[in-house]
């Protein structure tokens, strides 16, 4: 499905470029073009994923290529939802280039790790595995949004504290809006992460009777879970908001990156090519 993925890529690139231009020039028309390109890209991307699914005969979330493509799709969906809820396109200036980059890597990458397919199919609760991975990819996408929102918060807060209102000040949404986005997405991300971890445990136990493998990825995932739980509890109880919460959002994402990519380097039971 390479040609289709390339079309998806070009739509996302158009969306990303226009989003950046809109951010720089503050032009409504550019925002609309960006939005339209994103929508078209997302629709084609959905088709591409489904085609992959049918062609390959398995859920399109295996190997580096598929995972990156799926992650990009997830990010596009998450961004779309936030756009719908908060109407702030400036988030796209940070998110859309990443989406385009992920699809670009996915379109040039070759799958090497398809050997893992055998290890996850052909057992009792096979449907749990796609559920497990999908939930986690959506959780990671949410945490990426928390990360971007946290960065935006820190930038905007700095502008307000130093009173040096430059380009950023005029273009970013209000502190409260950014804070709301971060809080809401952190909550959604944590819920998805919890469900993702639980479904993974269930799948694992149905496959080989073990809930836990002491695997680095599992440990990181639990650490991540604890950190976001902390973030949300603090926000809820101690009124721990603003700057410190934003820094926690950044730190949390570093941990997410470790879970997602880092364990691959350490060597992990979870190494199915990603």
């Amino acid at each position, binding site marked *: 499905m390479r040609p289709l993925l390339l079309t998806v890529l070009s739509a996302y690139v158009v969306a990303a470029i226009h989003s950046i231009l809109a951010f720089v020039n*503050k032009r409504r028309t550019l925002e609309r073009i960006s939005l339209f390109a994103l929508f078209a890209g997302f629709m084609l991307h959905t088709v591409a994923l489904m085609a992959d699914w049918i062609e390959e005969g398995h859920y399109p979330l295996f190997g580096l290529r598929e995972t990156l493509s799926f992650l990009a799709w997830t990010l596009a969906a998450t961004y779309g939802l936030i756009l719908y809820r908060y109407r702030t396109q400036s988030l796209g200036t940070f998110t859309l280039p990443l989406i385009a980059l992920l699809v670009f890597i996915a379109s040039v990458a070759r799958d090497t790790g398809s050997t893992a397919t055998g290890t996850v199919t052909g057992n009792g609760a096979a449907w749990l595995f796609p559920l497990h991975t999908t939930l986690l990819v959506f959780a990671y996408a949410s945490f990426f949004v928390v990360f971007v929102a946290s960065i935006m918060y820190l930038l905007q807060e700095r502008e*307000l*504290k130093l*009173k040096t209102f430059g380009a950023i000040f*005029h273009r970013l949404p*209000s502190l409260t809006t950014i804070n709301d986005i971060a809080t809401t997405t952190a909550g959604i991300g944590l819920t998805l992460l919890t469900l993702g971890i639980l479904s993974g445990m269930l799948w694992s136990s149905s496959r080989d009777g073990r809930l836990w493998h002491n695997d680095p990825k599992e440990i990181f995932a639990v650490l991540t879970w604890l950190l976001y739980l902390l973030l949300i509890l603090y926000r809820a109880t*101690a009124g721990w*908001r*603003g700057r410190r919460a934003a820094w926690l959002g950044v730190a949390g994402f570093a941990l997410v990156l470790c879970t997602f990519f880092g364990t691959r380097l350490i060597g992990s039971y979870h190494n199915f090519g990603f």
Partner: protein
Amino acid sequence: MSIILVGLNHKTAPVGVRERLAFTDEACAAGLRALVDGEVVREGLIVSTCNRVEVLTATEGERTADQLTRIVKFLSDARSIPSEDFSNHLYHHEDDAAVRHVFRVASSLDSMVVGEPQVLGQVRRAYSLAVTAGTTGRVLNRLVHQALHVAKRVRTETGIAASAVSISYMAVELGRKIFGSLKGRTVLLIGAGEMAELSARHLVGAGVGRVLIANRTVETAQRMAAEFGGEAIDYSRLPKSLAEADIVICSTGASSYVVTPELAREALELRRNRPVFFIDISVPRNIDPAVGELPNLFVFDIDDLEAVVASNIREREREAERAELIVESEVMQFQQSLRALSIGPTLGALRRKFQDVAREELARQRNRLGQLSAEQERAIEALLLSTVNKISHPIIHHLRRSYDTGEEETMRAWREVFRLEEPSGDEQIPLDDDEADDEQTS
């Protein structure tokens, strides 16, 4: 046909001159009827605001110098002021320059505060007065219509009106940057200075829910509370009120800090770290600058606000440069459409004249053709008309071209040859029809 604009504004004339020359709505209507004689001055419009008085006319056939004298005399007569009192404050623009000026005025590029929104409404008002007085026609209708379109483009495509340029409005703009919507927020006024009152008024206009007023003199607090639908609070309750307020505007005459870091920290704890926006417009300052170092508290003193205003004005000026480009391209387009607009009737009249000749000749010779079927009759008429159209086509083509290049002499010569009337003021020939006819004849 030429467009002439004569006027004065805040840049060229002091307020003393502007106010004497200003037109009330009634004076405007009467003046317009006096100005537009239907002979030389075909159309007229008067824009009169506190910052400008401008007379815009579409005229025919008189030299510009005479036009100017006429308009100056008109102003002098209409307002009963000797022309020496104001004539050296006047500026005048012709054709392209006049169109550009109208576009710039409507887009608020010529305003005292660039980007202010009122002027567009004032232009609209001036236009509707002229329409009521019956002094607008083909040219001004189109010009004003286009000016409104340009103003809309400038407003949406540039950030010319995006940021606040007054201290009192800064509270709203910065408040929005912190809280997003101001709906349902609480404002606390400490002290009741004029600037604080103005800021509060803007905030209430932006949807703020609750206004608390603390003032040494309780009567003043109560008076303002009544005005804003707010609550006057006792000075001793300040620490508690501070915890309730999202926006605090401080403007007391106190010589020491009213809001100290201790007080602020206490409030912050009570409101569980929700952000507070402090505006200190008092000199000496009433809010300890150290308050701004606490997390989630943002303190702006008068200097900060002035710096932001200055930077916003610079931002508007940058955006104004982009707006000028929009205006420039629109002026060019307008000039073209105007040319097409006023050549249309001439061409139409010419074509009709040719066709009438053909039809008359046919009618005269019809008897000699004997019995004809309806089809034959139609064919003969079509044949005659198409011959005539074919002959007239190069002439029309030539006329249109000399019009496009502005060769007025050629135009006049052709008009004289065929004894065509100059197009009258309000005859509106749709442009597209002309084009379609051209297609047919070629």
